[in-house]
């Protein structure tokens, strides 16, 4: 289908190929002719392999003993003991208690240290120079084993086509399955790009991949060394990760709108990015179109003299029928039971320092720390207040091998049962 679309676009606008032919003809076919970009040159494969080793405290989950409230995932943060860049946790074993779809994926390690192939990722990009069209696919393999046996997954994480209709403007239109447009953390989704290992406590709301259409426009302001960008999308599920809201189908028939307005300052010694994001549309974890989700957030990333400070804030609301009314729930991990009104406020601030120490083989060294805070409430349940301190180190060798180690210190506050769920995790990422 994608190939047909490319062919159709080529047929609709034959001018570039025609121009090259004309140029060769004018040269008589005997003089010097620049080599024609071939299909192979337009097609590029890249990827990475992320091998991890992680150990979590306790039983690897956030579920506290003797907390028999139902659903079990409403009174704690099941996402806290993350072990890799996918946000998968050491365990999501609720101890035999019912959960209602507010769950991460688990590597199933529990409290045992284990090696993991976190992700084996393959990117395929087809970008012929003759046409303003690019096609991209990212396929990922996650070997997993659980009490149910082999749980290996193959995920088509991204698959989209992008058209840049104007050669003199940064304007593109993408359709397919693509990155979120909310905030800035989605830029670091992949393990080979992310400085650290684990995502923030709010990443579950902002870094998902969904299916729809996206428009990006950036205008440069050279006199001010600045740029202003706009990124808007209409998708099936919004910006949440697939575990919370399945992206593959619009359950309501109405798309979710999301967008970010950004400002960039690009000085020689200082770079800054600021942005405001928003999201509104129906929840995509129910077929009840009257239940909306909406969110707003702000983000900033400032880099100067090897130091980078980045942070993000979000306030998100999931509506549910008021009063006596109830609606059924359906998440990316299957059926839940009923949707519940939910709201969360949270954010993080991360400081990283690129140590100015490089050699032929040591191509990067960074230290980083992050503070996360999240307050979330399902209506009728006590507020889940958590914070997390993360500290880590990243060493990059030969510009293709990243070695990372990280400690996560999760703290339950307020009415949240205390549970041992700190994590040590490490990752070796080979990029090719």
């Amino acid at each position, binding site marked *: 289908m994608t190939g047909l679309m490319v062919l159709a676009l080529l047929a609709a606008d034959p001018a570039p190929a025609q121009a090259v032919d004309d140029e060769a003809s004018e040269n008589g076919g005997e003089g010097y002719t620049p080599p024609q970009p071939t299909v192979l040159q337009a097609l590029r494969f890249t990827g990475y392999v992320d091998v991890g080793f992680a150990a979590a405290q306790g039983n690897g989950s956030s579920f*506290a*003993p*003797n*907390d*028999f*409230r*139902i*659903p079990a995932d*409403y*009174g704690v943060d099941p996402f806290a003991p993350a072990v890799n860049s996918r946000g998968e946790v050491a365990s999501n074993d609720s*101890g*035999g*208690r*019912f959960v*209602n779809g507010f769950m991460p994926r688990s590597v199933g390690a529990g409290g045992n240290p284990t090696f993991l192939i976190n992700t084996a990722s393959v990117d395929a990009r087809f970008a012929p120079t003759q046409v303003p069209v690019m096609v991209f696919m990212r396929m990922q393999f996650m070997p997993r084993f659980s009490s149910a046996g082999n749980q290996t997954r193959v995920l088509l994480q991204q698959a989209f086509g992008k058209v840049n209709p104007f050669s003199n403007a940064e304007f593109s239109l993408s359709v397919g399955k693509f990155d979120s447009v909310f905030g800035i953390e989605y830029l670091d989704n992949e393990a080979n790009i992310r400085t650290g290992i684990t995502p923030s406590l709010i990443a579950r709301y902002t870094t998902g991949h969904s299916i729809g259409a996206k428009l990006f426009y950036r205008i440069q302001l050279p006199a001010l060394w600045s740029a202003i960008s706009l990124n808007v999308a209409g998708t099936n599920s919004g910006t949440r990760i697939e575990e919370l809201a399945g992206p593959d189908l619009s359950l*309501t*028939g*109405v*798309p979710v709108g999301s967008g970010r307005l950004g400002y960039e300052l690009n000085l020689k010694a200082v770079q800054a990015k600021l942005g405001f994001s928003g999201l509104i549309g129906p929840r995509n974890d*129910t*077929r*009840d*179109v*009257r239940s909306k989700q909406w969110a707003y957030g702000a983000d900033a990333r400032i880099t100067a003299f090897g130091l980078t400070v980045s942070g993000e804030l979000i306030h998100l609301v999931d509506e*549910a*029928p008021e009063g*006596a*009314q*109830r*609606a*059924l729930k359906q998440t990316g991990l299957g059926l839940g*039971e*009923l*949707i*519940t*009104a939910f709201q969360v406020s949270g954010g993080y601030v991360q400081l990283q320092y690129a140590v100015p120490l490089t050699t032929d083989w040591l191509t990067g060294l960074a230290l980083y720390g992050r503070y996360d805070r999240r307050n979330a409430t*399902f*209506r*009728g*349940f*006590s507020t889940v207040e958590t914070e997390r301190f993360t500290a880590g180190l990243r060493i990059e060798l030969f510009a293709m091998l990243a070695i990372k180690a990280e400690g996560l210190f999760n703290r*339950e506050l*307020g*009415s*949240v*049962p*205390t549970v041992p769920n700190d994590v040590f995790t490490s990752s070796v990422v080979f990029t090719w």
Partner: protein
Amino acid sequence: MRPTALLFLLAACSLDGPPRGFAWPTASFFRSEPATFGGFTTSSIANNTTKELVLQPAWGSGQRLGYYVTEIWQNHPDLWVQPVYLLGAVQNETIFGVDTESTFYSPFWRAWVVTAQAGKTYDRVSAVNELPMWRGPMVVCPIVPSGVTTDRAGAASRGVAFVNGARVDYLSFGTDRQIAEPFEGGDLDGVVLPADFHLFATRGADGGTEPLRELPAVLPDDPWHHAYVRRVDVLLGAEAVFVPLGDTVLRAKLTALGVQAPEPSNLIDASLAEQHRGHVAADGACFADAAGFPSTCQWLDSEGSVKQLADNRRVATDVTLTANPVTVP
């Protein structure tokens, strides 16, 4: 696609969605405006002036009983058992796991008896979950608006408890009043499953059933362990409803609806007649036999007797409720 075309496409999308479910906790019955929830009018099950739940007439296993309705659900999944933490002798405190505002509120609680420490404050689950505790019985305790009680003294005990750090009132209808299903075959509780709760009914103008709320319900055969019930409407045919001789209003209403309500013998003792008000018999001829009444009647006053009727006369509804049984003098 042009923007206008996109707008038309979006406008064509259904904005109604699938039918919703409903949950009405006790507090819903005490709103100022009368309402009907699952076929029950609030004015008939709760007295908003006196803040009392109103005793409802019923029969169960051939015995005259009563019941209090404390919650009603419609088109709703079965209820989960929630925890309630009882802090024993030291604190004499109770902590409910969830509030009535929760989508997962349920009046069916598993008691966890906690060994608390003297001198400490326990007002939420996170304060007790690390303490020693043992699994206690199931209790049926609806959280109710402050001051609400039953219209018959002693039918339920009143209490005050914590939920999420705040104080709430509750009623207790006793222990072991509901059987819980194990969750996925494990040791922990799952949902409660409804037993059949029969209301006699007529066919409505829309082809549906119209429950006759004036007539006593028929509770499950073991009502003391099945407070959670599903409303099943029983369409009356040739059966007859016993109406005391002097109650011409009820007789006229039933007769107008096509329900058999023959005049009983005037020799039947008035107090006996009152006890059988609304009692449904397979054949009303026995109402004329004062000497043999009531034993000569074949009553439809047990789950077994009602279930002998043809299946198409028993219409299961999507309404479930907590029908807390009580004995009556």
